[in-house]
């Protein structure tokens, strides 16, 4: 029989799910207590974007020149279409094409 769950996978999935659910419901229940203005608000507003940038850029650098060009392709397509799927496809196809050519 093939293995359905790796050792530790169930714990990881349950922990991650509990954290996510707690954030969703917690946000709703705490709605009145979160800052609506001021520096703390700006920090919270900005955090998702800067976190994702921090995830993206080192990975793109590891992919070398192709990665940089792929990232450029993502940027151009996103600005034109605002569509998540097309943006991703442009990056993957760009990198793929460059690897086949060179």
């Amino acid at each position, binding site marked *: 029989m093939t293995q*359905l*769950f*790796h050792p*530790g*996978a169930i714990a*990881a*999935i349950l*922990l*991650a*799910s509990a*954290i*996510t659910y707690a*954030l*969703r*419901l*917690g*946000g*709703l*229940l*705490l*709605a009145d207590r*979160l800052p*609506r203005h*001021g520096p703390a608000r*700006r*920090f*919270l*507003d900005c*955090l*998702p*974007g*800067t*976190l*994702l*940038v*921090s*995830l*993206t*850029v*080192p990975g*793109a*650098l590891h*992919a070398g020149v192709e990665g940089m060009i*792929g*990232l450029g392709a*993502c*940027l151009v397509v996103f600005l034109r279409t605002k569509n*998540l799927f097309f*943006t*991703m*496809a*442009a*990056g*993957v*196809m*760009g*990198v*793929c*094409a460059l*690897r086949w050519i060179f």
Partner: protein
Amino acid sequence: MKALFNGMQANVPLAVSAMAYGGVFGVLSANQGVTWAEMMALNLLMFAGSAQLVMIEMWSVPMPVLAMGLAVLIINMRYLLIGASLQPVFDGRPLWKKALGMHLVADENWAVTIAAHRRGGTCPAFLVGGGLMMLTAWSTATITGNLLGGLIMEPERWGLDFAFVAVFAALSMSLWQGRQDLLPWLVAAALAVAGEQWLPGKLYIALGGIGGALTAVVLEIVQNQRNPRPKKEPIPDPPDKTGRKDLQ
């Protein structure tokens, strides 16, 4: 019941798009050794695309359970704000409705619900309908990709290893709020690249994220000092701020 159906319908275009990248995502998960059962458990219990992507990227034996939990906490911190912004939709509803409805909140059906709410009110059922639509599309696509994924040889040849970066890039760009984000984002990128060299594990992500967001706070304070506002008035949004005003 009608609102549930309307919510499903309103999310169809987003569901189609989610299916497209969910398929790629499923293929990636197979390459990382994630089984279909693990993927399905993540879909049903966590139901959060970008956090799933990060977990799959970290997937290895032995499972880094705590590091994954921390990463998910950071990535999904936005749900705290998303949850808070749904307060008017759930206003006056009993706790059990809030507890059930909030599980199926994803970025997509949240955005659709907030937009509908501004056009003339909506209800939790509309949100849940959208969530069910997204869950169905997402699960179908990721599981299909996962089962077919093992058949694709040499994923590097097809640029699929870059798909992680491309998805993250696409998600980041959708969070762009305007020019005032430029410097914070540059600081975040620089700190992340430097931190990756010097810090253990995935700590560079937190370093970049927090450093970048702090930059934004400093920028705002400096700007406010240059153009002081009358004290009693609430601080308005900067005029060039686009998107995600819903969180206010």
